[in-house]
């Protein structure tokens, strides 16, 4: 029988730190927490199964971005299909990385839950990923109250 679980998506730096804090909080209530994950780095949190996806954005070179994004999208698409086939996944949660977009679309098509937590460095403007995920996610959390002006339907969550 396939294990009942959820998918966590994060990336290097702040997004990983945010996921670390989120998983710590979840484990306090659910000590046997099981999940699968996708990130642009090796498994940091002892997932049941973990996939590494190439980072879709370059912080210094904008010309390489379209190619990276296509490659990254194809990769996450295949990884998500594999995980959906092998696990009984209820939904996904991400802490603000653009590689979540394709998995999130797939999940919504299959009527699975999508939770997005907008990056904690955002106070007055929307992130690239946030702008898109605001329309895809079932539940969209912001960590800074001032952001509710930009995302009227978002839910304030407090800060991780």
């Amino acid at each position, binding site marked *: 029988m396939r294990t009942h679980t*959820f998918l966590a998506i994060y990336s290097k730096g702040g997004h990983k730190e*945010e996921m670390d804090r*989120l998983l710590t909080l979840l484990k306090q209530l659910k000590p046997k927490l099981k999940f699968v994950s996708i990130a642009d780095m090796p498994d940091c949190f002892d997932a049941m199964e973990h996939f590494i996806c190439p980072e879709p954005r370059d912080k210094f*070179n904008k010309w390489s971005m379209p190619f990276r994004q296509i490659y990254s999208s194809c990769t996450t698409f295949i990884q998500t299909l594999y995980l959906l086939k092998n696990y009984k996944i209820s939904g996904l949660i991400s802490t603000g990385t653009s590689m979540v977009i394709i998995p999130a679309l797939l999940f919504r098509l299959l009527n699975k839950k999508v939770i997005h937590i907008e*990056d904690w460095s955002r106070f007055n403007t929307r992130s690239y990923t946030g702008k898109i995920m605001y329309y895809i996610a079932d539940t969209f959390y912001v960590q800074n109250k001032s952001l509710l002006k930009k995302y009227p339907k978002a839910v304030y*969550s407090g*800060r991780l």
Partner: protein
Amino acid sequence: MNIFTTVGNTRFDALFEEIDKIENHQKWQLIHQISDGQYLPKKGSYFRFVDNIDQYYADADIVITHGGAGTIFKLLELGKKIIVVLNSHRLDPHQTEIVNYIHDNEYGLACFDLGQLPGLLNKITDFSPTKYKKPAFFKTADIIEILDIM
């Protein structure tokens, strides 16, 4: 005075070049975390990445940090004295918001232009930051319910 400089995952050579230019190093013990930067600091010691960065935070009197939110929130929770430096060499300008947040709330000193750094280092000893109270995350139970986590 122990000064630890950290740039997280994103190289920031201009910051270390600026620190090397600053006079008055006699009283300062400098340690730098430089990520994959190409410029190697001449003053003090440096490393690229480290597992126990918390120890370096603990040993520092002052931490000079890039505008990464993860590092900044951690340092605020530890009650450290910080100088937050905006990395304007990145394509994505989102660090401006958190640097403004630090500046407006006086949680630390903000450096919007590297030319300000010598002045801020002189100012930081007498600077008393506003105490940071973290607005706790309160949606954990909701997430467990939505995702049906067992």
